[in-house]
C-alpha cells in the first residue's frame, strides 16, 4: 500500500494539468485517486461507479488538495469494507465542497501571499548584498535563483507530504489537528518576517545603489530617495485600494522617469 500512497503523492503534482473552466481540477483529482481505486476495487463495475463519482466539480489550492485526497481515499476504503450506502457517497461530495474553499483560502494566503514573497525577498536581499562586490557577484550569482527555489520548495514539498500523511492517518480529524499547530504558527512567523525583510532589503538597496542617475540630475540624492521611497510606499500601502494594477505602476514609473529626464 505504501507504493500506492507514493504513486498518489507523485501524481498530486499533476492536479492542475487538465484545469478547465467547467469543472476545474476534476480530472487531476481523479488521476491522483486512480491507483488507489484500482487497488481497492477489484470489481470492474464498482470501480467504474467509483471513478465516475469523482468526475464532478473540484477546485482548491493545489498543495492543500492532498489532505482532501487522503480523506476521500479513506472514505472509499470504508465503502469497500463496509458496503456502499447513500450516506457515505453523499459524504464524499459534502467533504469536497466543505473543505475546498477554506483550504484554498489558507493555501493562497500562506503560499501565494507569504511564503513565496518572503523567499523572493530573501533572494533579492542576497542579490543586493552580492552586488556590493563584483568578484562576489561574479562567483555566486547562480546561487540567488537557486536559493529562492530551495527556500520555497523545502516548505512546499514538506507541507504537501505532511498533509497527505495527516489525511491518511487522522482522516476527518486531520483538519482540527492541522489548525492546532502548523498554519497558525507559520502564519504568525510570516507576519513578523514579511514586514522586517522588505524594510531590511530596502535599506540595503539604498545603501548600495542610491538612485543612480536620477539622484544626480534633479535633486540632491537623499531628498529624492526619501521622497520617492516614502511616496511610493505610503501611496501604495495606505491609500491605494486592494485592486491596484501593477502594470499601471510599471508604466507610471517609466513615464515619471522620462518626465524627470526632460
Amino acid at each position, binding site marked *: 500500500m505504501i507504493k500506492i500512497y507514493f504513486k498518489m503523492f507523485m501524481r498530486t503534482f499533476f492536479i492542475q494539468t*487538465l484545469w478547465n473552466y467547467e469543472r476545474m481540477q476534476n480530472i487531476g483529482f481523479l488521476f491522483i485517486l486512480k491507483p488507489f481505486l484500482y487497488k481497492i476495487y477489484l470489481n470492474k463495475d464498482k470501480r467504474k461507479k467509483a471513478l465516475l463519482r469523482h468526475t464532478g466539480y473540484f477546485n482548491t489550492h493545489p498543495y492543500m488538495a492532498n489532505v482532501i485526497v487522503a480523506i476521500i481515499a479513506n472514505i472509499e476504503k470504508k465503502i469497500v469494507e463496509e458496503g456502499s450506502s447513500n450516506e457515505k457517497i453523499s459524504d464524499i461530495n459534502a467533504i469536497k465542497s466543505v473543505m475546498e474553499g477554506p483550504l484554498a483560502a489558507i493555501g493562497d494566503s500562506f503560499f501565494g501571499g507569504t511564503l513565496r514573497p518572503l523567499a523572493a525577498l530573501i533572494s533579492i536581499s542576497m542579490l543586493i548584498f552580492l552586488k556590493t562586490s563584483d568578484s562576489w557577484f561574479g562567483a555566486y550569482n547562480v546561487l540567488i535563483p537557486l536559493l529562492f527555489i530551495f527556500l520555497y520548495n523545502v516548505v512546499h514539498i514538506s507541507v504537501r507530504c505532511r498533509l497527505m500523511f495527516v489525511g491518511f492517518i487522522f482522516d476527518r480529524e486531520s483538519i482540527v489537528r492541522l489548525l492546532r499547530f502548523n498554519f497558525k504558527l507559520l502564519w504568525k512567523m510570516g507576519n513578523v518576517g*514579511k514586514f522586517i525583510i522588505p524594510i531590511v532589503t530596502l535599506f540595503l538597496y539604498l545603501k548600495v545603489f542610491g538612485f543612480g542617475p536620477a539622484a544626480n540630475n534633479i535633486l540632491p540624492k537623499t531628498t529624492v530617495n526619501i521622497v520617492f521611497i516614502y511616496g511610493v510606499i505610503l501611496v501604495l500601502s495606505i491609500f491605494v485600494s486592494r485592486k491596484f494594477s501593477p502594470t499601471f505602476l510599471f508604466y507610471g514609473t517609466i513615464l515619471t522617469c522620462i518626465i524627470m529626464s526632460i
Partner: protein
Amino acid sequence: MTENVIFLAFIAALCTVDIIGFGQFMICRPIFCAPLIGFFMDDIGTALWIGMIVEMIWIDAVPMGVALPVDISSISILSTFWVCKYFMSLYEAAIWGLILAIPFAYLYRWIDIWGRNFNIKIMYWVEKGIQNGKDGRINLGIALGLFFFVSRAFLFYIFAMIIGGWIYANIYLQFSELILEGFKKAWYLLPVSGFGMVMHNFRNIKTPFLRH
C-alpha cells in the same frame, strides 16, 4: 553561450508549464526563469535585475482559480532574451524589453484562456471513456493536457522571440537620447516601486479563517 531560439523557447515553455501544468515548484517565477535564460545567453547579471524588477512589481500575480493575471514568466523571459541577443548588458534596452514584453504577456494570457477552454473538450472525452470502460483515458487525458500546454507555450515563445525581437531591435534604435535617459533612470527606480508593491501586497494579505 547559446542564442538558439528553438532551444531557448523549449526551456521557456518548460518554465511556463510550472504555472499550472506540472508541479508548481515556482520555476516559472521571474526571479528563477529570467536568470536561467540569462545563464544560457551569458548575461546572468542583467537577467537577475530584470527578474528582480518583475518579481517585485507583480508580486501578487499568481493564477488563483478562474482569476488569471498577466503572464509574468513571459515578461521576464522575453525581455531577457531580447536584451541579451540584441543589446547585451544595456540597461536602457532592458527596460524597453520589459515595456514591449507586457503586450506579449497579455497575448499569452489570452492563449492560456483558450487552452483552458480546450481542456473542457479533453475532460468530456475522458469522462466518456470512463463510462465506456476505457479508464486509460484518464492518464492519456493528463498526458494530452501536458503536451498541448508545452506545445502552445513553445510556439508562442518561438513567435515572440523572433517577431517580437525584430520589432524590439528596430524600434529601440529610433529612440531619442531623452527617452533613453528616462529608461536608464527607470532601471534604478523600478525596484523601488517594486518595494512599494511588496509592502502593498503584504498589507493586504488576510487569513480570516485563522484569526481566532
